């Protein structure tokens, strides 16, 4: 067994959240620079340049890229040999407690926006800590702990969709629905997007896949040639929408389409689209 100190998980989680909020990830800035070379609309080029300028201001002044510092979504992969060493006063505190504490610390220390309502339909009081974070834990072999943080804005999350297709449905029909979902997201969700697609699994697994797909580095290709070519076709069709940066027209509507798949029931073909905005804030650390 390998011990990891509770406090170091708190610290790491907080640092990941703050860095994600303040610094546009390298995969996005590279994709934007690449898009600048091919974008034909002068207005779109100007907006893409401002996107990079915004990132520079945020990094320099140590403020968030976007004021919606989002819900904190954490994918934690804990090695089966990892033990969390909590200080005596924390008793039997777990990895999940450490992540929650880290997310709250990030809000306080990093001056992130408290964007969590305590419940959905009654008073919607702000929790004021930007917690709870939404944590997806999996156990993997080994003695490492891998933490991936995604700060997910409300504007783009609101435009994410789920659909159950018939198992005999053609890839073209499913792809048309994906492209339509992106079109419906429109200017509201802050294009250019990163589009996460989940295919297969069951109801909740499919949605989780679509979010997990967002974590794949922009610019990488799917390992399966069938899905790799589907991603390429989807990206082309999405660009053909002409939505462009900020929905003000142009060729650059999405920076990437990422598909994640899972086995599914013989009766089902679940599909989910999770839209992320150009403020695609993600950051990973391994302890």
């Amino acid at each position: 067994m390998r011990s990891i100190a509770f406090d170091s998980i708190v610290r790491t989680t907080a640092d990941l959240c703050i860095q994600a909020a303040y610094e546009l990830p390298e995969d996005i800035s590279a994709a934007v620079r690449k898009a600048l070379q091919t974008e034909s609309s002068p207005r779109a080029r100007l907006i893409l340049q401002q996107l990079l300028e915004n990132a520079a201001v945020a990094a320099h002044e140590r403020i968030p890229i976007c004021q919606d510092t989002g819900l904190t979504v954490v994918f934690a992969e804990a090695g089966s040999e990892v033990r969390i060493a909590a200080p005596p006063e924390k008793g039997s505190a777990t990895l999940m407690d450490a992540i929650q504490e880290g997310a709250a610390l990030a809000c306080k220390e990093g001056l992130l926006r408290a964007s969590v309502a305590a419940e959905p339909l009654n008073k919607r009081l702000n929790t004021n800590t930007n917690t709870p974070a939404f944590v997806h834990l999996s156990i993997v072999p080994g003695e490492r702990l891998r933490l991936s943080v995604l700060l997910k804005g409300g504007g783009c999350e609101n435009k994410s969709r789920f659909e159950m297709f018939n198992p005999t449905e053609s890839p073209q029909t499913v792809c048309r629905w994906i492209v339509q979902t992106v079109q419906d997201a429109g200017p509201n969700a802050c294009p250019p997007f990163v589009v996460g697609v989940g295919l297969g699994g069951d109801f909740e697994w499919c949605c989780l896949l679509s979010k997990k797909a967002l974590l794949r580095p922009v610019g990488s290709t799917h390992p399966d040639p069938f899905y790799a070519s589907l991603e390429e076709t989807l990206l082309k069709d999405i660009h053909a929408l002409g939505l462009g940066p900020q929905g003000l027209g142009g060729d650059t509507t999405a920076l990437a389409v990422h598909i994640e798949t899972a086995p599914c029931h013989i009766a089902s073909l679940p599909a989910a689209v999770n839209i992320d905005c150009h403020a695609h804030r993600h950051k990973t650390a391994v302890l």
Partner: protein
Amino acid sequence: MEQETASIKLSTPLTDQQISSLRAGAWVTLSGVVYAARDQAHRRLAALLEKGQPLPFDVQGAVIYYVGPTPPPPGRVIGSAGPTTAGRMDAFTPLLLKAGLKGTIGKGCRSRQVQEALVQYRAVHFSAMGGFGALLSRHIVDSRPIAYEDLGPEAVRRLVFRDFPAIVAYDCYGSSIYEQRSKG
């Protein structure tokens, strides 16, 4: 922020004359007092108007910015402060326009009802660049809460803009940049 064409300089409160001169697609820069309000604040403002009670700020000629900023670090007046989705305020906007509101700033599309209310009450909706909160915050030179502080980041704030860049998204003639775009 640099713009593709020379922008029209506006200062608040907005007059009918200024509004009449604005066409969808024109870049503007806004200066002067602007009020920050988003979802929950709108619910409360609309409730006041429905009861015939006064609003916590003078709405005549006023401009509302749909924003919930991050807290300012030491030495800054505001943190990151870009627009939130305007469409979520659609249900409340006609009521505010009727009361004298002349401009709104957000990101994304508005409903048919808001578009019609902008024509009826001679007002304008601007789009600011979504996700550019760091850059836009440089054009906000003062910020203080004036109502509903219990709402935290959703409190109503009195902001002072200096050359805040935006584009006329819906004008008082019923045109919108988003429709212009889809018509190609």
